[in-house]
């Protein structure tokens, strides 16, 4: 029953698409806007298996590898610095007075407005794309993790102090382990924006990548290719989210609530 209910919205959307596509194609068999599901399936099969005519490479896998590498680097770097700064700002009053206001202001800069600057400074290569993801999600991660760190009850910190813990030990043994599940949670929330920034930067200047390909075939109105890529990206994002959720459950059994 639960499975049926969960599947229902997907089925409804699929049927709605199939019906709309069917009637458009009845009227104009050359319609490109809503290709038939069977056409998408054929295109998908071709994209996943057949190599490029010129180079012989299967472009979709190359695009996926390039995009995932940029995404992993951007999100990984952001997660690391988000964790370090979040912990320090949350636990150390001096770090808080120094950085909290700065981060609050920085996080208000629209990252896409910085994109031209990033292209000018870091060139059109990999670096500028990774930097855009970092600029886009790092302030959010820092602010979120600072908040989570501040939520650790004061009593626990005092208790650790009475057990003879130094600041370093409090960070390492009280702050860090309690904030790691929150980090995964925050990263899960920021995966969406990370994809947004990735595809935006790939659309503007790139020679491979999922976002680049979508914006390339847009010129030919190749909806079947675009839809295949969109579904593929969605699937990837969902799998990443699911993997992070599972990791969090397995690694932090004590933090069952809210994850």
């Amino acid at each position, binding site marked *: 029953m639960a499975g049926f209910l969960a599947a229902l919205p997907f089925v409804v959307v699929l049927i709605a698409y199939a019906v709309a596509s069917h009637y458009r194609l009845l009227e104009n068999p050359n319609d490109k806007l809503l290709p038939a599901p069977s056409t998408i399936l054929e295109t998908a099969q071709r994209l996943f298996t057949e190599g490029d005519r010129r180079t012989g490479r299967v472009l979709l896998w190359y695009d996926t590898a390039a995009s995932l590498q940029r995404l992993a680097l951007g999100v990984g770097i952001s997660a690391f610095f988000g964790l370090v700064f979040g912990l320090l700002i949350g636990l150390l009053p001096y770090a808080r007075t120094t950085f909290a206001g700065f981060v609050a202001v920085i996080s208000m800069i629209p990252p896409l407005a910085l994109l031209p600057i990033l292209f000018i400074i870091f060139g059109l290569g990999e670096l500028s794309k990774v930097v855009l993801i970092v600029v886009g999600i790092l302030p959010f991660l820092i602010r979120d993790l600072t908040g989570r760190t501040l939520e650790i009850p004061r009593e626990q910190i005092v208790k650790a102090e*009475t057990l*003879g813990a130094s600041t*370093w030990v409090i960070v390492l043994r009280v702050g860090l382990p309690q904030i790691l599940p929150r980090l995964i949670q925050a990263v899960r929330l920021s995966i969406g924006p990370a994809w947004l920034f990735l595809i935006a930067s790939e659309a503007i200047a790139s020679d491979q990548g999922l976002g680049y390909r979508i914006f390339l075939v847009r010129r030919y109105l190749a909806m079947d290719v675009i839809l295949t890529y969109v579904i593929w990206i969605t699937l990837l994002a969902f799998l990443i989210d699911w993997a992070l959720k599972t990791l969090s459950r397995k690694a932090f059994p004590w933090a069952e609530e809210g994850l």
Partner: protein
Amino acid sequence: MSFVVAQDIFQSYGSRPILERINLEVAQGEFISIVGASGCGKSTFLRLLLAQERPARGSIRIDGNPPATEPGLERGVVFQRYSVFPHLTIRENVVAGEAFQRPWGRFFGAEAKVARARADETLARCGLEHVADQYPATLSGGMQQRLAIGQALAAKPRVLLLDEPFGALDPGTRLAMHDFLMELRAETGMTVFMVTHDLEEGFKLGDRVLVFDKPRWDPTDPDAYGATITYDFDARNGGIPFQTLKEDTHVFRPQ
């Protein structure tokens, strides 16, 4: 010889005085209950004892040492809630009582094994050995407080501070906790300060009961004056001390 000496303590938050002129001498091994109405500064006094706050005037010394500037090993503490670490198992929580003093906050190798064995002894003492590998969230309130006390004692503090430790427990569990605490105290001879709302509990457990109240009261400005110790009861023998004859009177008394 007084073990804990509080000398002329004043504390205020902003312009609002909380405590004034508190002088207290406590001998080693005494159990001090602190009672008083809400907002009369007894928790503030405990935070001062804990060195979580520093008094505006005066000083608190333990065993003649210079006044502490932050909580440390001399003081153990159990709060009403949040006293144990939710991300550590029950056993690790007790091990943490010793391991947090180390540079990395943990033991390595053979030392770790010995520490775990010691922790298991403590857990057996607290009646928690059957849940050693679980996380604190799975424990009842009473078990969590027993764990918190065991953890605090694992660090071997000079003074144990309890801030309404049994306030969130049901009456039956509370009585069991009283017995547990009295047994532990008889074993360790620890100096204990306990803030409580429950007068009966204060007199039952304490050797002395300190009452915090405001000696001066301005009805138009209730915040004008701070609180101090207004009564210092001798609570031994159920609050009726000096009823036992100390000398042999050479008179026949049924034993």
